[in-house]
C-alpha cells in the first residue's frame, strides 16, 4: 500500500508541475518584452558590474537585529529554568545582556543606526 501511495504522490507532483506550465502557456500567450529575458521579473537585477554601489544600511540594520535575535534565544532557555537557577542565573543573564548591550551601544555610538 505504501508503494501505491508513493506512485500516486509522484504522479500528482509531475501532473502539477506539467500542468502549471501547460496552463500558463495555453492561457498566457507570448508577449515578448525586455523583462521576459531576465531570470526574475522583479527584484534586484541578477547581473551587475562588480564595483556597483549597493546600500549598506539595510545590512547594518539586519546585523544589529542579530544582537536581539541571539539575546531572545538565550532568554527563552533561561526562562525555562529560571526557578532552578535562582539568583545566580539572574546575575548571569544580567551580565550576558550587559555584554550584548555593549555591542549594541558601540554600534549606536558609531552612528550605524543613523539612516542617511
Amino acid at each position, binding site marked *: 500500500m505504501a508503494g501505491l501511495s508513493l506512485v500516486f504522490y509522484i504522479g500528482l507532483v509531475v501532473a502539477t508541475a506539467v500542468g502549471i506550465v501547460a496552463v500558463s502557456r495555453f492561457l498566457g500567450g507570448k508577449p515578448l518584452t525586455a523583462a521576459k529575458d531576465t531570470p526574475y521579473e522583479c527584484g534586484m537585477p541578477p547581473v551587475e558590474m562588480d564595483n556597483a554601489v549597493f546600500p549598506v544600511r539595510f545590512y547594518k540594520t539586519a546585523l544589529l537585529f542579530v544582537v536581539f535575535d541571539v539575546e531572545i534565544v538565550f532568554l527563552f532557555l533561561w526562562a525555562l*529554568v529560571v526557578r*532552578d*537557577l535562582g539568583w*545566580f542565573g539572574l546575575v548571569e543573564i544580567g551580565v550576558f545582556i550587559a*555584554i550584548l548591550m*555593549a*555591542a549594541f*551601544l*558601540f554600534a549606536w*555610538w558609531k552612528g550605524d543606526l543613523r539612516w542617511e
Partner: protein
Amino acid sequence: MAPIFQDVNLYCLLPELVLLTGAVVLLFVRGAGRGSAALPVAATTVIVALAAVPLLWGERAVGFGGMIVKDNGALLAQALLLITALVSFAAAADALPERKNNGEYYSLLLFSLVGMGIMTAAGDLLVIFLGMEILALSLYVLVGFLKVVRAGMEGAVKYFLLGSVASAVFLLGLALTYGATGSTQLVAFTAPATMPALLPAAAVLLVVGLGFKIAAPPFHMWAPDVYEGAPISVATYISVAPKIAAFVVLLRLAGESAGPGREALTGAFVFMSVAGMAVGNLAALRQTSLVRMLAYSGIAQAAYILIGLPALSAGGAAAVSFYLLVYMFMNLGAFASLAHLSRRRTGTLRIDDLAGLASRAPGHAFALAVFMIALTGIPPTGGFFAKFYVFKAGIQAGYLGVVLVAVVATVVSCFYYLRVVMVMYGEEGGAGLRGLPAGVTMLGAAIGVMVVMTILTGILPERFLQAASAAFPLLAAGM
C-alpha cells in the same frame, strides 16, 4: 536539571575575563593618534592578564564540567600569546595611521587573545571550535583594518574564504568524532569508539582544519598575501600567536588519540610536515620581498615543529613547546625588525633595499642578522637547539625519513636566510631606507629583548627545555 553545570568556575577563566573586560572598555575609548588612551589601556589589560598567569600556575583549575582545563600547558601558551600581543602593540604604535580611531584595533586584538585562551585551555572539541571562531573573526577584520590598502582587503578576503573552509573542515571532523565516540570531549579519543571506522577520517579532518592556523599545507596559501597586505603589526601577531595556540591544541589531540585515530593522525602530521618543508623552502628561495620570504619561512618553520607531534613518546611535547618558545622570540624579532624598518613606508620592503644597512644602522643590522641565523638553525642561537630537540625526538620515535627531509630543507633554507645577512653586510647603497628613527623606541627595546632571548635560549637550552617539559607533564611522561 542535568545540563546545568554545577561547577561554574570563573576563576579558571581569570585571564580571559580580564581581557574581555578590557576589550569591551576599549570599544568606547575615543581619540586618535599619540594622545589616544587606547594603547595604554590595551597594554595595561594584557599586563594584568599576564599577572594572572603565575596566580593560576600549578593549580590545574578545571571548570564548566571539564570543558575548561587551565593546566600549565595552557598557561605557558597564554603567557607566550600575551607577550606576542605586547610586542605587536609596540609595532602597532607606528604602523597604524595617526588620525584613525584605534580603540577598535586593540579591542579586536584582545578579543582574539580571549579566543586563543579558550582554545588552549579547552577540554572539549566544541569549546576549541568556539575559541577558534572568536580568534578567526577578530583576525579577519584586523587583516583588513586599513580599508584604503587594496592589498590588505585582498588578503582579508583570502584569509576569510580559506578560514571559513578550514572551519567547515574542522566542524566535519568534530561531527564525525561525535558519530564515532558519542562525545565531543577530547578524552573521548582514548575511549573505545562505538564506530571506530569513522575515527581516522575524523582525526585527519580535525588536524587539517587546525592546520590552517599554523599555515600548514593544504591550507597554507593565505600566508604570503595576508602578511604582505595586513598592517605590519597584525602580520607580526598572526605569524606567531595563532600558531602557538593551534600547536597546543594539536599537542592535546595527539596526546589523547589512540588506536586507528592515532595512525591517521600520525599520517596527517607527516604529510603536512613534509609538504610544508617542501613548499615553504622552495617558494622562499624565489622571493624578493622580505615579508613574503618570511611568510614562506613561517610555513617551513611550522613544518619543522610538526615533526615533534607524532614523536610524543620520545619527548616530543617538550621539544615542540621549546621550539614554540624559540620560534616566538626569533620570528617576533624578525617581524618587529621589519616593522621598525618599514614604518611610514608605502610599498613592500625588498631584500635588496637592505643593502648597506650594516654601516648605517649597525645595531639594527646585527639584530636582524641574529634572527636570520636563528631561523636557519645555526648555533649559538636558540634556533639550533629548537631544531635539534625536535629532530632528535623524531629520530627516536622512528621518523628518520622525515628528519632527513628536514635536514635537507634546512640546508636549502641557508640560502635565503643568509642572503639577507649578506646583503646587509656585503653590499652598499640600498636606496630604500631613509629616515630610520634614532634613539630608543619602544619597538627597538622589544627587538633588543628578543635578541637577548634568542641567544639565551641557545646558551642555556636545558633550562628552557626543562621548563617546557614541566608545562606538559602528562604528555612528557611517555604515552
